[in-house]
């Protein structure tokens, strides 16, 4: 099933990378969602579009319109922000000052009309897992106006010590190798770690211990509980050739499919991408450091240089609004410029 969804995405990228296509392989979902409309919406996600599913009807708003108050304020009972891939320590051509762009992302979060209840960082906090990089990251985040920050590691955070340093700094209240969950405003949040114990030739890895923990963690929840999962590497097969996927995510999704609303927030690929599969919405965030090419559009998924004036338009944050009773969370990506 994930392979079929991936083919759908690939077809979009074969259309000159614009992502706009009227061709739909099949209606992959039975929820009555207009697939055509959703595909167009996904194409524009990177440039800032708010896509909100309300009662089976897709409404999309250009982000600039939202920010200029041309549409009604999409208020909710809970809002939080996702930032990702700050890569503190990176200093190559694609961005010579990742600390500065992280600072701009923080300023953007602080300027939101509704302050977020908390912030999620979906990994690759640092570039080389160095202590001074973690120090700079923590220092930068002190200016974030929010009550709590939750973290999951990226592969760049666990380079030499199997994650010991990351765990000591950010994983004190976690289980096993760093997974955990918490409840907020009636929704259940789950932080997963899929960047440890990677095998040769493989993708991201959750592992049997974490999967068993997940099974037990959600077993007692009512199916109407909104679920939000956050992990670094995408939990769907975005582009396996570049390692953009998780080998054993299907088992995790099997435990979650009975829930009416599941949102999965990932990072790792340094661009926004969204996929809907029944009640599950997958969403990846931009990096605050540097962009990466679209699947298959370059020789490798490394840092992508863009013209100097364009960099900030391809970096960004994700604002998520939860309205009780609505089918899915309202996810808004906004760029730094």
């Amino acid at each position: 099933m994930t392979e079929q969804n991936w083919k759908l995405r690939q077809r979009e990228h074969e259309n000159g990378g614009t992502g706009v296509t009227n061709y739909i392989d099949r209606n992959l979902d039975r929820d009555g969602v207009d697939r055509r409309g959703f595909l167009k919406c996904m194409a524009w996600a990177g440039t800032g579009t708010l896509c909100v599913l309300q009662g089976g009807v897709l409404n999309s708003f250009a982000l600039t319109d939202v920010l200029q108050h041309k549409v009604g304020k999409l208020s909710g009972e809970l809002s939080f922000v996702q930032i990702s891939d700050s890569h503190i320590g990176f200093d190559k051509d694609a961005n010579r000052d990742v600390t500065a762009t992280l600072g701009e992302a923080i300023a953007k979060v602080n300027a939101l009309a509704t302050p977020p209840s908390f912030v999620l960082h979906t990994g690759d906090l640092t570039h080389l897992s160095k202590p001074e990089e973690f120090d700079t990251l923590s220092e930068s985040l002190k200016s974030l106006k929010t009550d709590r920050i939750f973290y999951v590691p990226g592969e760049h955070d666990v380079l030499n010590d199997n994650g010991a340093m990351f765990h000591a700094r950010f994983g004190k209240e976690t289980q096993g190798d760093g997974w955990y969950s918490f409840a907020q405003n009636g929704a259940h949040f789950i932080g997963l770690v899929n960047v440890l114990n990677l095998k040769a030739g493989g993708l991201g890895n959750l592992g049997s211990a974490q999967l068993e923990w997940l099974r037990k963690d959600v077993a007692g929840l009512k199916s109407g509980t909104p679920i939000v999962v956050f992990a670094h590497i995408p939990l769907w097969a975005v582009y396996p050739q570049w390692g953009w996927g998780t080998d054993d995510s299907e088992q995790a999704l099997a435990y979650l499919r009975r829930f009416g609303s599941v949102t999965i927030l990932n990072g790792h690929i340094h661009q926004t991408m969204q996929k809907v599969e029944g009640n599950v919405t997958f969403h990846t965030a931009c990096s605050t450091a540097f962009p990466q090419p679209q699947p298959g559009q370059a020789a490798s998924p490394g840092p992508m240089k863009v013209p100097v004036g364009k960099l900030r338009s391809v970096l960004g944050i994700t604002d998520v609004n939860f309205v009780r009773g609505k089918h899915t969370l309202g996810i808004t990506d906004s760029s730094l410029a």
Partner: protein
Amino acid sequence: MKRAAPFAVFTAVLAMTLVVTAGNGQASQSGGKSAAVAGVKIDNFSFAPATLTIAAGTTVTWTNDDDVPHTVVSDDKTTFKSSALDTGDHFSYTFNKSGKYSYFCSVHPRMTAEVVVQ
């Protein structure tokens, strides 16, 4: 310090010259006992060459020319294992035993390659 007797010094110099000459002689023969080296370049999320064939006793040096850090880790994660290599960093390992050694980058595990030691 005692002054070395001139004859002793002469003998030592002669001996060293003979050793050096012999060493050079051996190096110029194929399959000689001098240490052989080989290189693997890491760039664009790949190892080049993907299959490196060498003689036993060769020291292989990996160089990371990519924009992101990579590692060099044998599939069993114990035979050889580099720390994270940033751009420009090197890692070396001497293969003394013949066999096929598959390895990968533990940060980007889809990057795989092998060293064949004859």
